[in-house]
């Protein structure tokens, strides 16, 4: 016998390969595997679970990360949002004290002025105050959110005025009693008449309607305000200075046995950075400015871009972990298959001898066992893909979680399971092919 050389084996294999031959070999392979149905099934279980868990986990992870990214994107990736938060010490005091007490915290007008004056690359700064009130048109009433803001609000939020105009710097400085209505408020307060020029009453004051905003889809920053269901889309836009004049900076809240008052100048400030690359440096500059001016941590800085980057990082790590799990489980699955194929080769030594005596060349034997292994792992891959595609549907259906099955993940998983068959099938197949026909025929 000449020393068996694997390269020669594969040259012969490729030279001899044809569709017809492959089809017959596949048919023979299925017959052999079918002879040991249970064993075949148990053999591929590793591959099945590997492929299935990878597809399912990818779909769940993809869904979660998509949701997170959408939420973050809706905040605007060029924006930096400053929010007033009640500092923890203040909270304690207000819980203990039964006497009236005015708490002062949050982002201030001075902060806004500082930011505009000292930080370059900031296109717009939009401070706003939110107050929930009832608005009246004679006897019609609507529960809405008063937004005290700045004249450049529309361009900042990409929200255009449909009729009339938005208030101006002059309105702002003059603390004019003017307001702009959202489309939802118009339909509630002025179902029949034209609103422009009319007056509405909020609290004890009257405001002239000077404009109406274009209708908009559902609110994007849904997580930030409580009780949004009633006031969704119902906004009354007023000059920030007017609101300050009318409501002052102190908000009163009645509590059992006492008043609680909070003084917050600005609830929220949105800083729009001119270019995406500057977002991080501007955010740092703002942090420093605020740290310098605030003794307590009574503000919060949200950088959507940073969150987005962090979400992307998290996803990358998740994918690496997932990839490792997938690799390990496919490796384990592949070793399982190789183990069984080696046992099968030994068990079928005599069959190999018979085939060799009847004219099978070594590469015919390689092809036979390789095809069997690939069939096994491929079948495992198919079952795994089916289960892996079904599981996300079940998860969405039962837990209501969003899942996304990317188009390539089943294809990739299936291809890899096929490759596992080839990689882990080669060694047993070569073992089979290198048997000496005489020895093989004498076996057992």
């Amino acid at each position: 016998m000449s020393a068996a050389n694997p390269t020669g084996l594969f040259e012969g294999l490729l030279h001899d390969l044809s569709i017809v031959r492959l089809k017959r070999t596949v048919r023979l392979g299925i017959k052999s595997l079918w002879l040991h149905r249970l064993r075949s099934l148990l053999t591929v279980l590793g591959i099945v679970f590997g492929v299935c868990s990878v597809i399912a986990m990818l779909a769940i992870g993809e869904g979660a990360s998509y949701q997170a990214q959408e939420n973050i994107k809706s905040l605007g990736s060029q924006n930096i949002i400053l929010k007033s938060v009640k500092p923890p010490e203040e909270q304690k005091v207000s819980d203990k004290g039964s006497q009236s007490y005015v708490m002062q915290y949050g982002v201030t007008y001075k902060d806004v002025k500082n930011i505009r004056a000292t930080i370059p690359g900031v296109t717009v700064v939009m401070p706003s105050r939110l107050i929930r009130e009832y608005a009246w048109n004679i006897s019609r009433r609507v529960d809405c959110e008063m937004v005290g803001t700045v004249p450049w609000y529309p361009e900042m939020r990409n929200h255009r005025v449909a009729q009339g105009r938005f208030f101006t710097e002059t309105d702002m400085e003059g603390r004019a009693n003017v307001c702009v209505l959202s489309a939802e408020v118009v339909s509630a307060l002025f179902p029949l008449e034209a609103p422009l020029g009319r007056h509405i009453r909020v609290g004890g004051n009257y405001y002239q309607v000077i404009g109406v905003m274009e209708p908009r889809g559902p609110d994007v920053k849904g997580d930030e305000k409580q009780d949004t269901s009633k006031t969704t889309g119902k906004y009354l836009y007023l000059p920030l200075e007017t609101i300050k004049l009318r409501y002052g900076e102190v908000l009163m809240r009645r509590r059992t046995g006492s008043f609680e008052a909070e003084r917050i100048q600005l609830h929220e400030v949105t800083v729009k950075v001119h270019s995406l690359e500057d977002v991080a440096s501007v955010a740092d500059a703002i942090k420093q400015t605020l740290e310098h001016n605030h003794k307590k941590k009574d503000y919060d800085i949200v950088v959507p871009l940073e969150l987005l980057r962090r979400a992307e990082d998290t996803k990358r790590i998740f994918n690496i972990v997932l990839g490792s799990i997938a690799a390990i489980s496919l490796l384990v699955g592949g070793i399982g298959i190789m183990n069984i194929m080696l046992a099968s080769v030994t068990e079928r030594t005599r069959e190999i001898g018979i085939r060799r005596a009847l004219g099978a060349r070594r590469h015919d034997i390689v092809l036979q066992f390789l095809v069997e292994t690939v069939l096994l792992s491929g079948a495992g891959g198919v079952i795994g893909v089916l289960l892996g595609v079904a599981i996300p549907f079940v998860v969405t259906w039962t837990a209501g979680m969003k899942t996304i099955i990317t188009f390539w993940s089943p294809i990739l998983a299936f291809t890899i399971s096929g490759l596992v068959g080839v990689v882990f099938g080669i060694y047993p197949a070569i073992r089979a092919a290198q048997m000496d026909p005489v020895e093989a025929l004498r076996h057992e």
Partner: protein
Amino acid sequence: MASSIVQFDDVRKTYQMGLVIVEALRGVSFGIEPGDYISIMGPSGCGKSTLLNLLGCLDRPTSGRYLLGSEDVSQMSDDALSSVRGARLGFVFQSYNLIQQLSVLENIEIPLYYQGRPEAESRATALALASRVGLEARIEHKPFELSGGQQQRVAIARALVNDPLVILADEPTGNLDSTSGKEILRLFDELNRQGKTLIMVTHDNSVAEHARRAIRLRDGLIESDVRR
């Protein structure tokens, strides 16, 4: 001699077992003419199986020359020997050696499958041979559903399917009861009458008597070669 289909010239086979060298065949020369019907006999360990393996191209001689048809097969490559086995030789084994997961018909087809013959043609040939050995009713059966005699007839059909130069049989009746054994030998006699060349290794004198030429081996050498 020119008409020989098998020609052995001073064929030797030695096995190395560690430090010990076993000379299984120590210079064997003989020729086989078409239509010969040969029995090979001899005591255990005299080299019968070794000789049959060499004749069957399952192994290569250590030295000497082996002509099969007009080809020198003594130093052919493994792949070439496989092709020679598939195209020019037929094997009948003591223990039938059928493949268990395949049907009777598929078992008969194997040599043609490895020669890459078209499926329809192989099927027709295999079918014809199944009926020649009287198993046309069993073609879809699996080997374990058949008696020993029937299995050996399948093996004979398989040995005939490639229309070989020589059919090599190793104790073909060794595992059979006397009735089935006689049936197989009757089939061999008939094949030989039709011109097939047969070589069989046997222990049994009554089996050897069916052959027309008796070769006796002793210690790796031909002791006698008699025609009747």
